[in-house]
């Protein structure tokens, strides 16, 4: 047998935003179809990306397909710009597309997110791109794609209502706290990705275009601007979002989603904004929480 030949390495270079133009065109077509049929999962030929499946490959492909050289990109994971995955994805587009990036929600033209919707209301010149692990809202009720596609086609969502009803019968509550199913434009039931149900109302009548990308499952779906998005519920058990007993310990914000931070091993904990940009902006504006460091003037006064 001939010895394996190790030839010269190919010259490797990548297109703007990594994907080749043919692939971007294919993704854009899927996005257009998704916008035309709000909430419908459009199959698309997702590519392997240089980050693992489950890390946001769907969102990254959607972002790559809609990103232009003049865009300003913000990437958040769990509401924060500085979590490892957000940093990695932002770095990816800085490297492959050389676009400007920001942590400010108001400055961004495209925001890619995992698990949160920013607290600041979005505008009509912004696009919110969601990373989606399991796009099928019926998946955990019916594992087969052949079945679920049929259920969607027939608007047969009884299974989902039964599931929510059983929750109430068993626990007195709907036990779904995130990835809470919504009905889009009065037609398709959609998985909003694993955002806390706290964020669901922000999707309704949102001025920004909302795009959802699931890479491993090869699906894209969308909510066009100003579309009605209704969280599933019952007349006698209306949809309710989580409420926090205390305001943010750093900026004093109420009515926002908070992260619980464990401070010690004796039950010490604090609650702070999950949306780091929102929290920082408020602190800069002078808002204070119960655990804010003493203000500078106060320190000086004391001294």
């Amino acid at each position, binding site marked *: *047998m001939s010895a*394996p030949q*190790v030839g*010269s390495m*190919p010259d*490797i270079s*990548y297109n703007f935003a*990594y994907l*080749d133009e*043919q692939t971007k065109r294919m993704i854009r077509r899927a996005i257009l179809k998704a916008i035309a049929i709000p909430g419908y999962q459009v*199959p*698309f*030929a997702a*590519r*392997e990306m240089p980050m*693992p*499946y*489950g*890390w946001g490959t769907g969102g990254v492909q959607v972002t790559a397909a809609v990103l232009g050289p003049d865009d300003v990109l913000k990437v958040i*994971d*769990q*509401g*924060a710009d*500085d*979590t490892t995955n*957000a940093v*990695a994805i932002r*770095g990816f587009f800085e490297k492959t597309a050389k676009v400007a990036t920001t942590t400010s929600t108001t400055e961004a033209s495209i925001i890619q997110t995992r*698990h*949160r919707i920013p607290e600041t209301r979005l505008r009509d010149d912004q696009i919110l791109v969601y990373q989606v*692990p399991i796009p099928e809202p019926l998946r955990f009720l019916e594992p*087969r*794609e*052949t079945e679920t596609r049929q259920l969607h086609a027939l608007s047969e969502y009884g299974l989902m209502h039964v599931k929510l009803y059983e929750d109430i019968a068993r*626990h*007195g*509550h709907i*036990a779904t*706290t*995130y*990835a809470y199913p919504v009905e889009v434009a009065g037609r398709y039931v959609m998985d909003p990705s*694993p955002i*806390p*149900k*706290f964020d669901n109302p922000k999707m309704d009548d949102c001025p920004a275009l909302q795009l959802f990308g699931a890479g*491993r499952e*090869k*699906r894209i779906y969308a909510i066009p601007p100003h579309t009605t998005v209704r969280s599933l519920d019952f007349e006698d058990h209306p949809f309710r979002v*989580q409420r926090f007993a205390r305001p943010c*310990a*750093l900026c004093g914000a109420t009515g926002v*989603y908070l*992260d*619980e*931070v464990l401070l010690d091993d004796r039950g010490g904990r604090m609650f702070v904004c*999950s949306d*780091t940009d929102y*929290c*920082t902006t408020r602190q800069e504006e002078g808002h204070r929480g119960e*655990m804010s460091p003493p203000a500078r003037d106060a320190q000086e006064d004391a001294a």
Partner: protein
Amino acid sequence: MYVAAKGGEKAIRNAHELLARRRRGDRTLPAVTLEQIASQLTLAVDRVMAEGSLYDTALAALAIKQARGDLIEAIFLIRAFRTTLPRFGSARPLDTGAMLVRRRVSATFKDLPGGQLLGPTFDYTHRLLDTSLAEADAGGAEEGAPPPVAEPAPPMPRVTDLIGAEGLIEPSPRDDGAEPFDITRAPVSYPVDRATRLQTLARGDEGYLLALGYSTQRGYARSHPFVGEIRFGEVEVVLDIPELGFEVSIGEVEVTECQMVNQFKGSAQVPPQFTRGYGLVFGQCERKAMSMALVERALRWQELGEEPGAPAQDEEFVLSHCDNVQATGFVEHLKLPHYVDFQAELDLVRRMRAEIAAERKEAAE
């Protein structure tokens, strides 16, 4: 005092730096070369090419080196590169009957045209650790021994063609000339056709297919398999160039092909005959080719009117979970932060516990 955690960027940079150091290992030792990987860890290279779906030994060797020997990570590197390559056409079906055969065994016939050719195999070795290999330059093969002379290979018709001449086995489906479905360029929808099934299995995880294939032997979708033939060797890749109006050979690839021969009782339309399960893998990997053939056959239960119910027969289950790059990504993504969702669950559990405690208190009073 808690300050919103910053510094993710720097931490990632440091982690990558540490990874690079660990990859290099002890700097007093020479770094392993791609030539060494490609010529001495050939079966690792073969697996990376097969499941990476890219036939390039140099890149596979590079990926193995970069991945510190983690083959699924290496497969992932190859896939991420492969996906950026343009597709300029599809080759004509490989003619494995015209293979330059390095190894060929049949379990169904003691002797057959072309004979049994054992070739490079672990099959008949005693699995005793060979301490002589611990010496840096000891190779097992005699130093300076002349390489085996490539004799003009006798014609080796495929066993299935020999049985087929008698009509005892189902014919392999004809090439209808249509452009085959490409799972790397279009989303798969179920049920799938044969090309899609075979492509998906060919890049599927070896361990996963091994376990599923094994399960068919233990009674979960039993199909009475015989290895009609396994052959490994080089096959010419031929491409039609429409602009030129003729076909050209663009090179050779090493592949392992397994034709599993399975019992079939016949039906109202078809008299009893043998059926096939098919496996084809880049490089030398008989375990994968055989497993693929077993699973491929099990997946055909509907077409052959067999009883369903075993895991290996469930098309959507088998095919949608066999990709190890997808699987490892989704399993390992659980390492990513999930504190937003966990917070929502914490809140619910606390609330429900408080309600139950209140109910109990009320009942006690």
